[in-house]
């Protein structure tokens, strides 16, 4: 490898030897193409005319009145496919095209990354396999159906806890025997180098736009930028452009599940310890022997016992602060945004909103908070109905 892929002590590429040449090939391709004028022009064309970038930064007037300070919403939910995931899959899919790869594989939790990968597979005419935990297949069946409509094969993973981490395990295993013609389109800013860097790069337009939109609309930078964190791709995408702006507080919101004390949560950065999983040194939820814990969270997209290594670094150097909210707070926030703004947030994104709602009345009126609304909530209607039935 040319680069060590470190963020402070975190990151790296802790993988079996068989994957090293494959990662090296992707690193080389990314180095070569990501600033190549033709690649950039192709990607920007797709971002603008296929996915719908730039996304608006919307001043949420009624929600702002409700919480008592100024909330601006970065509308990644309006992108094609309904989530920020398409930014990354278009970028990596195009990279796979430039590399001459014929097939795509990906892991997925909530199904949003799987859907975004299946979309790009169809767009580029690439054979696509999506690895998805069997439990997630059940709880996100609408997305499974959409992936199949798009021509992807969905492979239910029954090993381990049958969720995202096991889907990653199986995708990595599959990749070891198909490295020649297959590109592993990794979904979050985690995993082995070069993925955290690549995913950050392709998600960075979120922050670049949001920062410029703040300057245009407000004439100044925001005070706080908030995003939900599972693996952390939408968060690093919006944080990245604000990292040098020391006056801007960065808040990452993790899934507190049924409460930290119950052990049923996925608040990796809040309560985890440092370890090595899926190729990266990072914070993990694990037992005293280093066996990885099962996690639990109302949103499948955050249900992961690790986190992107750059977030671990941002936590340790104190540049970003990581907090957690409970499933109940998330459901409250889901309804608040839906009823006050007419926007159905994904339950993942509703974590960021729940933290904002928790700050109700705690910030001065003029405080500006930008929240990354990473996805729309249509996929979660069934889960919301289970927890808070309308006709009770």
């Amino acid at each position, binding site marked *: 490898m040319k680069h060590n892929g470190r963020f402070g002590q975190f990151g790296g590429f802790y993988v079996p030897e068989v994957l*090293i040449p494959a990662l090296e090939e992707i690193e080389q391709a990314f180095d070569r193409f990501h600033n190549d004028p033709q690649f950039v022009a192709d990607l920007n064309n797709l971002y603008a005319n296929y996915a719908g970038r730039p996304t608006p930064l919307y001043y949420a007037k009624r929600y702002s009145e409700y919480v008592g300070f100024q909330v601006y919403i970065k509308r990644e939910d309006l992108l094609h496919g309904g989530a920020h995931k398409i930014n990354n899959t278009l970028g990596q899919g195009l990279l796979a095209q430039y590399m001459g790869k014929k097939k795509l594989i990906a892991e997925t939790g909530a199904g949003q990354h799987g859907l975004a990968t299946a979309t790009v597979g169809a767009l580029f005419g690439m054979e696509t396999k999506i690895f998805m935990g069997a439990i997630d297949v059940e709880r996100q069946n609408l997305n499974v159906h959409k992936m199949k409509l798009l021509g992807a094969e969905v492979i239910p993973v029954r*090993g381990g806890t049958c969720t995202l981490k096991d889907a990653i395990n199986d995708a990595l295993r599959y990749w070891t025997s198909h490295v020649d013609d297959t590109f592993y389109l990794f979904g979050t800013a985690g995993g082995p180098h070069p993925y955290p860097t690549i995913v950050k790069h392709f998600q960075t337009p979120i922050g670049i736009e949001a920062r410029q939109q703040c300057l245009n609309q407000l004439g100044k930078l925001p005070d706080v930028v908030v995003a939900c964190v599972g693996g952390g791709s939408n968060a690093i995408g919006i944080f990245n452009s604000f990292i040098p702006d020391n006056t801007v507080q960065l808040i990452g919101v993790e899934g507190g599940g049924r409460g930290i004390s119950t052990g049923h949560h996925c608040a990796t950065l809040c309560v985890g310890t440092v370890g090595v999983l899926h190729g990266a040194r990072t914070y993990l939820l694990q037992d005293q022997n280093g066996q990885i814990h099962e996690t639990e969270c109302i949103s499948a997209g955050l249900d992961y016992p690790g986190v992107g290594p750059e977030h671990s670094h941002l936590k340790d150097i104190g540049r970003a602060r990581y907090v957690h909210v409970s499933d109940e707070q998330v459901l409250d926030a889901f309804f608040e945004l839906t009823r006050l703004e007419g926007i159905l947030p994904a339950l993942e994104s509703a974590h960021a909103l729940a933290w904002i709602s928790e700050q109700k009345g705690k910030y001065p009126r003029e405080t500006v908070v930008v929240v990354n609304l990473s996805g729309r909530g249509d996929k979660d209607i069934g889960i919301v109905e289970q927890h808070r039935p309308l006709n009770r």
Partner: protein
Amino acid sequence: MTSYKTLFDHLDRAALIPFFVLGDPDEKTSLDLIKTAIDAGADILELGIPFSDPIADGPTIQKADIRALQAGMTPPKALDLIAQITAYKAIPIGLLVYYNLIYHYGVEQFFKDFKKAGGTSVLVADISIDDADEITPAALSAGLETVFMVTPNTPDQRLKQIADKTTGFIYTVSLLGTTGQRNELSAGVKPLIAKLKTLTNKPVCVGFGISSPEHAAEVASAGADGVIIGSRVVKIIEDNLGNPETMKHQVAEFIASVQETLTKA
């Protein structure tokens, strides 16, 4: 304790190296099975500590990891099992472990304790030579040998670098993929063994997908110094859960048949 060097120098055939997950299917049966394998003719043992997320392993060994974890296996208990094995017979033991387990235990302390239990070498499945500095100095200062993997897609220059970082034996992965039984021996393995033999004089042991005495004989005749058989042995446990006597019988029979074939080869 027999070192690898002494063993490979004195053995006039390829070394027979069965793999077990420590604590599979439970602590007691695991110890019995490993003793059985020793009695049946194993020259070296390759032992794994079960991990919740073993990405280098196929379904058979994943299931063994889960069985062992559910039966309560932990790294300290695994070290204790190793001590009981080496007390039974002074056989070289190579450990195959995922990094998170020893990272958590403390790398230096783990290697010291493994050496004290009678261990010989350590292979960390998810550490490549690029990060060898995180384990090699501690392993060497504990008196352990290092083992690294090469695979059919490893470039020549890197094969050489891996050989240089290896003090024990080169773990040659026979195929692109995870551990698991295969019907056919991978076509790429013989050229890989031949190439390694021109690049290095370090012992070359071959594993992944070696599923029959015939496979073992083939890699041995291609020049391998040792043959590692994992999933095929572990599958005997999976197929006979609840019948430890049958497991022992079949393990003994299989190991003996491989030994016989290797001796003839």
